[in-house]
């Protein structure tokens, strides 16, 4: 008798719940995460090295991106030189390996959150340069990859 009751209750519960199951709706939670592109310059000053004069005074920066690719393109633009090195060409050297020529700066890929060390270099002896403060400034243009 008890078994019959349990069976009847189960069947009626299943019958009652089946239309509910048939009409059940899924809940979806979505949010679009926009791509963010950023740069963090952890040291904004460095020295210019010459053939006869090197220093360990490097400028440093990091790229911040939440793109799937995990890297950004960095372009050195608006390279501006002080008067005494106006006619000199030079390089930015990133991590002792990538050379960015001032007269024809190429875009380079930089990984997210990896510190980049940069020095400026003129391939001449310092005594060949007109006396005074030699100075170079540039714009670091970040182009995040989002495809």
């Amino acid at each position, binding site marked *: 008798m008890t078994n019959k009751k349990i069976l009847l209750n189960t069947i009626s519960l299943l019958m009652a719940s089946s239309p509910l199951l048939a009409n059940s709706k899924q809940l979806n939670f979505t949010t679009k995460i926009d*791509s963010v*592109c*950023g*740069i963090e310059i952890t040291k*904004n000053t460095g020295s210019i090295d010459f053939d006869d004069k090197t220093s360990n005074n490097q400028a440093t920066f990091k790229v911040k991106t939440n793109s799937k690719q995990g890297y950004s393109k960095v372009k050195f*633009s608006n390279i501006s030189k002080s008067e005494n090195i106006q006619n000199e060409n030079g390089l930015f050297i990133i991590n002792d390996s990538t050379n960015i020529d001032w007269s024809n700066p190429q875009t380079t890929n930089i990984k997210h959150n990896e510190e980049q060390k940069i020095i400026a270099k003129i391939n001449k002896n310092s005594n060949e340069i007109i006396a005074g403060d030699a100075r170079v400034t540039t*714009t*670091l*243009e*970040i182009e995040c990859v989002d495809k």
Partner: protein
Amino acid sequence: MFKILLFLMTGITLYAHSQTPIIYGGKEDKFDSISLTQTKIVPISIQNLNNFKQKYSITINGEPVGRTSFILKGERRNIKIPVKIQKPNKLKTYKICTTSIPNNKEMFNTKICTKAYLYWAKKKNEI
């Protein structure tokens, strides 16, 4: 002592800048691309992550269109950029960039761009 202090002072100086979105409109967000008028407002958000206030200049395809007032340390600012779409019924790309305006003798300033794909939908009889 002075040297140590100077090192510490420069050591904590942080120059940083971020911008979102990187792409506006295009394949992923076609509706954002479409404009029924020639001028489309493109919203961008920039954040000053420096530990000092900074101004930023704004350019569209390299042409200066304005500059922000000082954005405070850590502040995120939403800016509505009006972009004039050159030709109707054609998908055009615009590069909207913000560039930090240096305060002192800094070796770098930073520039970040948003690529906006814009389409000015205009009826033929309106052209």
